[in-house]
C-alpha cells in the first residue's frame, strides 16, 4: 500500500502541475458558470437539472483530454520501463493514475458545487435531484477516467489516446440508438448499455443500484483491461 501512496503522490504532482489540467478546469467552469447564470436568470427555477446534463456532455468531451497522457506519455518517454521494473504490482500503477485523474475531476465537480450553494442561499431547491446529480456525475467520472486510461495504455500517441477514448465514450452515450435496428428482446442490450439512460434517473432524484452497478462494473472492466494491457509485454 505504501508504494500505491508513493505512486499516487507522483501522479497528483504530475496532474496538478500540468497546464492541461488548468485549461480543462477553466473551460469546464467557464461554460458551466455561464450556463448556470443564463438558466437562472431566464427560468428563475431553483434546480440544476440543465447544468447536470451540460456537465455530462462536457465531461465526455474533456476527460479524454485529461487522461490521454496517463500511459501514452510514460510510453513515449520510456519511463514506463522504470515503473514496470520497480517492485510494485502493475495494478497499483493503474490505480494511481486512475485516482489522480479522478481527484482532478472531483475538484471540478466540487468547484461547481457553488451553484448549488447559490440556489440554497436564494431559493428552496429540491435537494434530492442535486445530490443524485452529483453522485451520477461522480460515477460518470469514474467510468470516463477508466476508459480514458485504458485508451492511453494502448498507444504512445496522446492524440490517438484522446480520440479513441472520446469515440468509446460517444458510442456508449448513443448506444441506445442501435435499439431501433435490433429486434426484441435483443434491443435491451444497447438500451442497457447506454450511458445516458443510467444518468437521467439519478438527475431526476431516483437512485437505483442497477445504475450505480452499471458505472462501477464498466469502470472495473476498463481498469482490469488497462492492467492487462500494461502487464502484457
Amino acid at each position: 500500500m505504501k508504494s500505491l501512496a508513493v505512486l499516487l503522490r507522483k501522479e497528483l504532482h504530475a496532474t496538478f502541475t500540468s497546464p492541461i489540467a488548468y485549461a480543462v478546469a477553466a473551460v469546464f467552469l467557464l461554460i458551466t458558470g455561464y450556463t448556470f447564470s443564463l438558466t437562472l436568470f431566464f427560468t428563475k427555477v431553483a434546480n440544476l437539472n440543465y447544468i447536470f446534463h451540460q456537465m455530462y456532455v462536457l465531461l465526455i468531451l474533456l476527460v479524454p483530454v485529461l487522461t490521454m497522457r496517463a500511459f501514452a506519455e510514460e510510453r513515449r518517454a520510456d519511463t514506463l520501463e522504470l515503473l514496470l521494473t520497480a517492485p510494485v504490482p502493475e495494478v497499483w500503477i493503474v490505480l494511481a493514475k486512475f485516482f489522480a485523474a479522478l481527484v482532478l475531476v472531483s475538484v471540478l465537480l466540487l468547484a461547481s458545487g457553488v451553484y448549488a450553494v447559490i440556489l440554497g442561499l436564494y431559493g428552496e431547491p429540491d435537494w434530492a435531484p442535486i445530490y443524485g446529480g452529483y453522485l451520477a456525475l461522480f460515477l460518470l467520472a469514474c467510468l470516463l477516467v477508466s476508459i480514458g486510461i485504458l485508451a492511453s495504455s494502448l498507444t504512445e500517441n496522446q492524440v490517438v489516446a484522446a480520440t479513441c477514448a472520446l469515440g468509446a465514450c460517444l458510442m456508449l452515450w448513443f448506444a441506445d440508438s442501435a435499439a431501433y435496428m435490433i429486434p426484441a428482446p435483443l434491443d435491451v442490450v444497447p438500451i442497457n448499455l447506454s450511458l445516458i439512460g443510467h444518468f437521467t434517473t439519478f438527475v431526476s432524484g431516483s437512485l437505483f443500484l442497477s445504475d450505480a452497478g452499471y458505472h462501477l462494473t464498466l469502470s472495473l472492466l476498463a481498469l482490469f483491461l488497462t492492467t492487462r494491457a500494461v502487464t502484457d509485454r
Partner: protein
Amino acid sequence: MTASNEPTADDRPIVAIEGASKRYGSVEALSDVTLHVRRGEVLGLLGPNGSGKTTLLRMLTGYLSPTAGRLSVAGFDTERQRMEARRRIGYVPESLPLYSHMRVREFLRFMAELRGLSASAANRAVGEVAEQVALTDRLRAPIRTLSRGYRQRVAIGQALVHRPDILVLDEPTNGLDPRQIIETRHLIRSLAGERTVIMSSHILGEVEKIADRVAILLRGRLLSVEAMADTPNLEALFLSLT
C-alpha cells in the same frame, strides 16, 4: 562443518539464467540462453545491435517474460517471485528514462520510496547516492536542464539508491563524451565487488576495460562466455565467433 566440494553462499551464482528464450511471433529474439553470474563480478554482454542483449537484460529485470526457460536473481524466480527479484536489482535502461519535470532530489527520493524505503531512509539514501555518483551540487536542478552526462549519473543514481545486489546497465556509455565515458567506466569499476554488475555494450573496448567476464551474443544465441583474464585478444575471439 562444510564439505570442501559443496558450494558456499559466495560460490552460488547470484544470477542464474537457464535455457531462457524470447519469441515475438515468428521472430526469436533470444534462444536457449544459459548463463550464471557470480556475486561481485562485472559481466559484460557483448554483441552487435539486435543480438538480444537488451532482451536478456529486460527479462532479468522482469520487464519481459521469457517464452521458455527460467531466470533467477539472488535465488528468486523473476516470474514467480517478481517483487522479491525486482527489489534486488537496480536497472539503467539504454534510453535513460527520467521524469523531466522533477528535480534530481525529488526523482531519486521517488525511486527510493517506490522500492520500499521509508521517507527518512530515502532522504539518507539520496544524500549517499548523490555523493557516490557526484551529483551533490545538482540535487536541486530540474532534470530537464541536465546534460546527457548528468542525466546518466541520475539514471545510475536511481538504480543504486535502494542498495541493490545487482546493477543492470544497458549500454551505459552510449551518447557520452570521452570524459564522461571514462568517469562512467571508473564508477562501474568502483561498484564491482560490492555489487554484481551486468552491462551490455556493442563496443569491444568498453567491455575489455570494465568487465571481469564477457558473454558474446549473436542473433539471440549465446556464443561464448570467457574470463577477461583468459582472453588476451577479445577482438580476435569476437571475430572468430562472429
